[in-house]
C-alpha cells in the first residue's frame, strides 16, 4: 500500500511540474506527437521548424497552421490562470472486468511513460478569473479511449460542477469507447450523458471543445452535448471512423470529410477556434455566462 502511494505521489509530482514549471516541461513532455529536439517537421506541410518556435506558437505550425497533438498537461498550462489548477479524483483504477490479456500491464506501462492515470485529467481551475471544472483528454493513453476510469472521472467532474454550480469545459480527444473493457465502456456513454442531463437541468454552462481526433463513443456521448460547441481547426470529428465508412460504402471519402470545418458547415459547431485564441475564447464565454453578468 505504501508503495502505491509513493508511486502515485511521484506521478502527481510529474504533473505538477509540468503545470508549474514550463521550462522543465519541454524535457519531460516526451511524446511522438509533441515536437522534440531542435527541429520539428510539420506532418502537414512537411517543412522543418525550430522546435522552440513551434512551442512558442502553441504547438501550431508557424507555416501552415497545423495543430500538433498536445498533452493534457500542456493544454492545461496554456489555458488556465497561473497556479490555479487543482486535480480532482486522480486515484481511480479499472477493474479489468473482461480479464483482457495484458491490459493491466499495458495500463501500468502507460502510467509510467505518460504520468497520467488514464486518458483524462479532471480538475478545477480559473480561466480569466472565472472558476471552471475542466476535463482534458490525452490521446497518448490508449488513443484517449473511454473505459470505466475515464467515464467515472468525467462523471465525477460533471457531478462536482453540478453540485458546486460551476461551468464545465471538456476537451475531447478520443478514439471512442475502450474495447478492452467491453460493455462496461459502452455504458460510460450513458453514464456521462446522464450526468450532463443533470448539469444541464441545473441551468449550468457546458462547453465542449473537440480536438483531433474525436470519434466513436465519445462523439456519441458527452462530446456532442455542449451548450457551446467548439473545435480546433482540421480536427477529425465523427461517429464512425473514416476507414470503417470507406469499407462500408466501398468508395473514397471526399477531402475534408469529418473535419471541424465540415462539421461547422453541417451545423454541429458554433465555432472553429485556433489554439492561440483558445484561452481568450474560453475566458470570454465564461464571462458571458457568469451569474453576475446576468444580473
Amino acid at each position, binding site marked *: 500500500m505504501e508503495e*502505491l502511494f509513493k508511486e502515485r505521489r511521484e506521478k502527481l509530482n510529474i504533473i505538477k511540474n509540468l503545470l508549474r514549471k514550463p521550462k522543465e516541461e519541454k524535457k519531460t513532455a516526451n511524446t511522438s506527437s509533441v515536437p522534440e529536439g531542435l527541429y520539428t517537421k510539420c506532418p502537414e506541410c512537411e517543412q522543418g521548424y525550430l522546435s522552440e518556435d513551434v512551442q512558442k506558437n502553441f504547438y501550431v505550425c508557424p507555416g501552415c497552421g497545423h495543430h500538433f497533438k498536445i498533452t493534457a498537461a500542456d493544454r492545461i498550462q496554456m489555458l488556465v490562470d497561473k497556479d490555479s489548477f487543482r486535480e480532482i479524483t486522480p486515484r481511480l483504477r479499472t477493474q479489468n472486468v473482461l480479464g483482457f490479456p495484458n491490459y493491466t500491464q499495458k495500463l501500468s506501462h502507460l502510467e509510467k511513460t505518460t504520468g497520467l492515470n488514464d486518458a483524462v485529467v479532471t480538475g478545477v481551475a480559473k480561466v480569466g478569473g472565472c472558476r471552471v471544472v475542466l476535463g482534458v483528454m490525452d490521446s497518448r493513453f490508449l488513443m484517449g479511449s473511454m473505459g470505466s476510469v475515464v467515464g467515472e472521472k468525467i462523471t465525477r467532474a460533471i457531478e462536482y460542477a453540478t453540485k458546486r454550480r460551476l461551468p464545465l469545459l471538456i476537451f475531447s480527444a478520443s478514439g471512442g469507447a475502450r*474495447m478492452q473493457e467491453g*460493455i462496461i465502456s459502452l455504458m*460510460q456513454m450513458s453514464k456521462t450523458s446522464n450526468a450532463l442531463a443533470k448539469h444541464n437541468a441545473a441551468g449550468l454552462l457546458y462547453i465542449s471543445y473537440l480536438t483531433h481526433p474525436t470519434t466513436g463513443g465519445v462523439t456519441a456521448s458527452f462530446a456532442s*452535448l455542449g451548450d457551446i460547441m467548439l473545435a480546433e481547426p482540421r480536427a477529425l470529428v465523427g461517429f464512425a471512423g473514416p476507414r470503417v*465508412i470507406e469499407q462500408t460504402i466501398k468508395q473514397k471519402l471526399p477531402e475534408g470529410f469529418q473535419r471541424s470545418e465540415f462539421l461547422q458547415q453541417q451545423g454541429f459547431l458554433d465555432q472553429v477556434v485556433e489554439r492561440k485564441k483558445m484561452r481568450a475564447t474560453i475566458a470570454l464565454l465564461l464571462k458571458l455566462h457568469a451569474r453576475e453578468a446576468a444580473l
Partner: protein
Amino acid sequence: MSIQEAEAKVRKIDEEIRQLEQKDAPDVDLATIKNELEKAKNTILTKAYANLSSYDKVYLARKPTRPNVRDYIENLFDHFFEQRGDRLYRDDCSIIGGIAMFRDMPVTVIGHQKGKSLEENLLCNFGMPNPEGYRKSLRLMKQAEKFKRPIITFIDTAGAYPGIEAEEHGQGEAIARNLMEMCNLTVPVISIVIGEGGSGGALALSVANRIWMLENAVYSILSPEGFASILWKDSARAQEASEIMKLTAQDLYAFDIVDVIVKEPMGNLNEHAEVIYAQLRDLLGNELTALCRLSERALLEQRYKKFRSIGDCSGI
C-alpha cells in the same frame, strides 16, 4: 458441437422423417421409428443448447428467422398505430415506433427493425439507423412523456449506420442527444434486447429503468467482427473475440446491467415464440404496474442510479 452443426443434423433427421412418411411400407413400424428419430433430434438439441458458446449466441441472436420487433408488437399489444418521421428531414424505417395498448394501458413502442426479406432488409437498412431514426425515436419518447405513456423499446441492431450521410447529419450528436434526453423522461422506460444489441446504436434506445434480455440475445460494445478488427486488425477472428467480450445475457446479468433474462425454448424460436410472449406479457404486466406507482422523482433517480453504478472504479 456448435449450434450450427447441431442444426444441420436436425435438418437431416427432419428430412429422414419426411422421406419415411412418404414411403408406403406397411411392414415398417413408422410410429416407433419416427419416435426414435424425434428423440435423437431432441438429444442433439438439448446437448447443443446446454453448451452454447458465446459465438453460438451471436449466431442465434442474428438469426433472420427470430421474431422481430413487428412480431413482438403484434403479439404483445393491441391497436398499434405507427408514427413515422423525425419532423426534421425524413422517415428512417430502421426504427419503427408508435402507440399501442398493453392490456388497458396506452404505451409507446419503439424498436429496431432489420426486416425479414431482402426487400425489407434494404428498406430498413438491415436495422442500422441513421440519425433520423434516433431523432424519430426521441420525438416519440417526448410525446410519450407528454401523454404520460410508459415507453417500451425493442433492441435489435448491429449498430448505427456508418455512412457519409449519417455523418453529415450528425450520427454522434443524434445518439448523444438520446442518451441525455432519455435520462430525464418522467415516464417508465423498459428496454428488451430481443436479438443483437450492437454498440451506441443499441444504447441510444436503452437508457431505461429496466433492461431485459432474451436468453440467447447479445449486447456488446461493438460487433465481434469490429472488435477483432480494431484490436487485432483481423475481423476474421470474430469467434475468438466473442468469447472474451462478455456479451451474453448471462454476462450482462452478472454486471447488473440486465435485470431479467427471458428464457428461450430450444430450436427455431419462431416456431415456439409464444413461450417468450407469455413471459413478456407477465413481466410487462407486473413491471409496468410497479413502475407506474413510483413518483416521477423516484423514477428518474432509479434510472440515473442504474447507469451511474456501472464501472465504478475502486479508489486506491
